[in-house]
């Protein structure tokens, strides 16, 4: 989230799309209702189903799953056509005025630079046009230059007329125009609107571009960085925000530093490649905060290898594993299944050992059968869990997941009982980036142990083995700093201190060399004090400030809210730098005056920025720097050359497309979206599978987790799996409400109770009648015996977004019949 949960109460219009907040974030949804009740805010719900969110919405617009980009670009078109965008904002805070190189083109579904062989784009074709004199970006403040981002955008969205949107999305034109009218009503300074989304956008082969489209719309309407505005992603788990912040995925180190590739052999190479050079040095120059990259990286290496990390040995950079290519979720599955992978042209082994701390790949999918088959090829599998999920018992999974004979599965499986949230302390980072400390309430049941103890014991045992027996690169283990008071079960408070970072030697004050900012051993106040010479260490620069000399700020519990805007600066700690609204500089105009005085984000009072923690050099007068300090442009991107699938979003059908793309039939699906080629990766044709299907969660259950609760209340509230089917389709197929129905995709079929409902409507797509069905995840072959069910992800395809490599769970093709 760019803003916070409570901040939603400050909005005038909410576009809830690509998510069902009432269902999945009911408590956060309170602030939607608050805005409705106290400000008369309008809630617009766009969803394939008439959801719990829609039930309370002022306007509901049905949409075909996977067609969101067309819907959003249509709104952008409407805003530009009818001059309902926030022009001053666009000029000051976006790259709308920037001039793009002649090399950029878009013809029948393909951007310039497409390499059909590699199915990849050469992104250099999308660069800005450097100004001949300054070599900086060319800028046209009038937005009139035909090669300006704004004009190119205008041209790009030309095709997304309400008629075309109706044809692609199935949204009735009149409803759609109402949506456009309400959403673009915030394109004025005195109004603010927010867009909220969740996995209904992130889980598509065009996911990132959907979100881009939303962000672009918000930039055009001048809603980014403002209280009551923003682009707000609702994360679905208590700490996946934290997981990504702190290197949960292969491609990033803590704090979104890049995992070094094989090509960066030395720290110097690496830092040069990773640190962006400031290109815009003119007015609204970019602060380009990433130029501090070396400080963050070196401090991280110091935290990782402690004393062993010295200037001489590149702070141990060589010991860091380097990556070549992709090691993410579906590649893990594929490489496991195939037993090897090809990296920079050479064959390398695939995983033969697998460690999972509380994750359930078989349930999560996609394509559960492939996961079962892949796990069966492992030599060993370790799962630390609260309950016995599908994954650790894949070897006894039911027939329909076609597992090999148990006797033929050579995998040694360890199932370790782990403590749950109440049985350990530590911090969770919520969707609003708040790091909140939780205290331990009870001991784990039986022999269960906290996951930090399980991990530490394994690590220490392996380290001992290397001490005794040696092996490849033992120093990587030997030098890893593990200097916790109790190495077997590190105290999480200590760990958080390490994450915050501290001075290793006195740090001189840059302003006055005679003074010191911090003396050796002191916790740093924030990432501003980090150094690139090894005099500081910090486990995650983004979190720096969470555990200062003042103590553990994640434990702060003040309910004071002086701004009245729901920022609560003294409740817990919000990264970065306890900032509550990201890009808040954009909440003020060129002079630093708030667009809406009633809802100021930050304000320039003559000598400094006041209000929220400024997303800006606190004493830099307006005009010094652009509002988006992390971007080399310094402004928000209506045009992003960094994407793998185009600088502008474009509507592409899902990988399993129910129609040919009406805009460019030759390029129906995302040309660079990724698929797999094993015998388990089967993709369905619209001829065999005419129905669009989507998956989702229920408010009464959590993932593959709560249905394990024996005699649990949640199992009382939602006892089992069901399939939601529109009345019309049910009639055609002779399916009665409550009867058994079978849903089949190219990858398998599942059966469950039919829930025949008015909430799914028949759709007219590209002139043809089309049906959508959907079903919740949550059930599987593990769980409380009375509450098992089919795995939803048996049906989902292994296709993914080319930027995030997130699977396309939300739009695929099926057929249904009476069971």
């Amino acid at each position, binding site marked *: 989230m760019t803003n916070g949960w409570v901040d939603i109460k400050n909005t005038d219009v909410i576009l809830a799309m690509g998510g069902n907040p009432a269902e999945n974030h009911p408590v956060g949804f309170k602030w939607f209702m608050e805005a409705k009740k106290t400000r008369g805010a309008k809630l617009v719900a766009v969803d394939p189903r*008439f959801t719990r969110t*829609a039930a309370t919405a002022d306007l509901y617009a049905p949409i075909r799953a996977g067609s969101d980009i067309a819907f959003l670009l249509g709104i952008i078109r409407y805003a530009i056509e009818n001059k309902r965008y926030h022009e001053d904002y666009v000029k000051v805070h976006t790259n709308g005025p920037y001039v793009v190189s002649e090399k950029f083109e878009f013809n029948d579904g393909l951007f310039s630079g497409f390499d059909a062989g590699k199915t990849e784009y050469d992104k250099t074709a999308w660069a800005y046009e450097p100004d001949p004199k300054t070599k900086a970006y060319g800028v046209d403040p009038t937005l009139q230059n035909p090669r300006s981002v704004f004009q190119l955008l205008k041209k790009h969205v030309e095709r997304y007329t309400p008629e075309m949107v109706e044809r692609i999305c199935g949204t009735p034109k009149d409803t759609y125009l109402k949506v456009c009218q309400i959403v673009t009503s915030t394109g004025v300074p005195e109004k603010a609107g927010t867009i909220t989304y969740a996995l209904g956008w992130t889980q598509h082969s065009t996911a990132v571009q959907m979100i881009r489209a939303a962000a672009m719309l918000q930039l055009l309407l001048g809603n980014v960085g403002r209280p009551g505005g923003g682009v707000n992603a609702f994360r679905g788990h208590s700490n996946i925000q934290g997981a990504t912040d702190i290197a949960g995925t292969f491609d990033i180190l803590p704090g979104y530093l890049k995992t070094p590739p094989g090509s960066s052999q030395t720290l110097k190479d690496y830092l040069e490649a990773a640190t962006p050079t400031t290109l815009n040095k003119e007015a609204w120059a970019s602060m380009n905060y990433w130029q501090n990259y070396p400080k963050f990286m070196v401090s991280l290496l110091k935290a990782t290898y402690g004393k062993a990390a010295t200037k001489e040995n590149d702070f141990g950079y060589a010991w860091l594993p380097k990556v070549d290519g992709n090691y993410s979720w579906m590649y893990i599955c594929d490489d496991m299944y195939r037993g090897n992978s090809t990296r920079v042209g050479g064959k390398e082994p695939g995983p033969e050992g697998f460690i999972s701390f509380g994750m359930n790949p078989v349930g999560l999918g996609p394509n559960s059968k492939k996961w079962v088959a892949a796990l069966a090829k492992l030599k060993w599998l370790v799962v630390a869990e609260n309950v016995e999920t599908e994954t650790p018992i894949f070897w006894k999974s039911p027939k329909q997941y076609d597992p090999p004979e148990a006797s033929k599965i050579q995998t040694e499986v360890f199932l370790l009982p782990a403590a749950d949230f109440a049985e350990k302390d530590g911090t969770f980072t919520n969707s609003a980036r708040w790091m909140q400390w939780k205290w331990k309430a009870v001991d784990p049941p039986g022999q269960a142990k906290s996951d930090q103890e399980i991990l530490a014991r394994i690590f220490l045992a392996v380290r001992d083995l290397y001490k005794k027996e040696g092996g490849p690169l033992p120093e990587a283990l030997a030098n890893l700093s593990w200097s916790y008071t109790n190495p077997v079960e590190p105290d999480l408070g200590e760990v958080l201190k390490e994450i915050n970072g501290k001075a290793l030697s006195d740090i001189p004050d840059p302003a006055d060399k005679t003074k010191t900012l911090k003396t050796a051993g002191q916790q740093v106040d924030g990432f501003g004090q980090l150094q690139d010479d090894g005099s500081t260490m910090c486990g995650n620069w983004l979190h720096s400030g969470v555990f200062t000399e003042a103590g553990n700020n994640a434990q702060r519990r003040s309910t004071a809210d002086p701004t009245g805007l729901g920022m609560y600066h003294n409740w817990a700690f919000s990264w970065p730098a306890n900032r509550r609204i990201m890009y808040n500089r954009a909440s003020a105009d060129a002079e630093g005056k708030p667009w809406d005085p009633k809802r100021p984000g930050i304000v320039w009072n003559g000598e400094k920025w006041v209000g929220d923690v400024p997303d800006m050099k606190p004493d830099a007068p307006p005009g010094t720097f652009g509002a988006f300090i992390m971007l080399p442009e310094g402004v928000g991107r209506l045009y992003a050359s960094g994407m793998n699938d185009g600088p502008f979003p474009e509507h592409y059908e899902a990988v399993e497309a129910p129609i040919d793309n009406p805009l460019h039939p030759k390029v129906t699906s995302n040309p660079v979206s990724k698929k797999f080629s094993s015998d388990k990766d089967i993709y369905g044709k619209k001829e065999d599978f005419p129905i669009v299907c989507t998956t989702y969660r229920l*408010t009464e259950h959590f993932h593959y987790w709560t249905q394990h609760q024996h005699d649990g*209340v949640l199992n009382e*509230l939602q006892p089992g799996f069901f399939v939601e089917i529109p009345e019309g389709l049910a009639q055609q197929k002779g399916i009665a*409400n409550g009867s058994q129905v079978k849903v089949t995709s190219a990858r398998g079929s599942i059966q469950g109770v039919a*829930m025949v409902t008015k909430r799914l409507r028949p759709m007219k797509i590209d002139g043809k009648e089309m049906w959508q069905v959907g079903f919740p995840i949550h059930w599987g072959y593990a769980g409380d015996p009375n509450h098992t069910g089919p795995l939803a992800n048996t049906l989902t395809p292994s296709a993914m977004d080319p930027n995030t490599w997130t699977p396309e769970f939300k739009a695929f093709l099926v057929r249904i019949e009476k069971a």
Partner: protein
Amino acid sequence: MSVQQNLEIRRSSASVWGSQSGMRSVPTVSKYIDTTTCIGCKACEAACIEWNDLRHIATEQTGTYQTLPTLHAEYWNLIRFNERDFDGGLVWLMRKDQCMHCEEPGCLAACPAPGAIVQYANGIVDVNPDQCIGCKYCETGCPFDVPRFHQTTGKMAKCTLCVDRVSVGLEPACIKACPTGCLQFGTKDDMVALGARRVEQLKSNGFTNALLYNPEGVHGTGVVTVLAHGDHPEWYQLPRDPHVPILVRFWKSFLRPLGAIAIFGAVIGALTHYTKFGPKEVRGVDAPDRNLPDA
């Protein structure tokens, strides 16, 4: 930490007279339900079960989001889901169903067991399991079909408005839980005022039939409900004009006293007759065959 001092009784079932206890006058409390901001998340259902430690009952998926077809002795709080075509589109109505804590409780009126159903000074209507005899009269008395017979305890069971929480100054469990704030709790006056404001807002948003459901038939309820479609309470499975069944009133407050009098009357009648006429027998006639030794 017993709590019984905190609540005094306004009215008690099957009481002959003077059921009011104590002197304190406390404000009547009320729940507020805004069906227009309810998302049917069932937090209230769960909170009710958790707080009151209700037993797990087996449910099954029958093609609806609604947990059970109706209330149950182990399930006092149920959200009723209704899909309705409306104005060319669809409305998905969710309404929290539970005891309405009527100002004029039909259950209490019907209850024959002294003190088995009480209305506390603050308006909460509660079943006192210790006094309840499980006769189910209250089922007939209740215009909202709320009380349920509990098989294992043999007592009636229903929402207590978390009297144990309220009596120590807390809100009921369901109210505290409600994520969207469609449930509120406070004095009846405050809740009615809140409801009136919300209804006005709805009307200005085009729901011209919006109203605050607080039926006069039972002199108002301790649960006031905002309905966007006030002209169709039945869409929410609410009775249009609930009242304590007239026949219940008749037999309870008229027929039975009358009957009692009639019976006493009969006895007195018999006595009077006896004193006036004495026994009916033959006296003085010669009756040879009565001269028996043992006669």
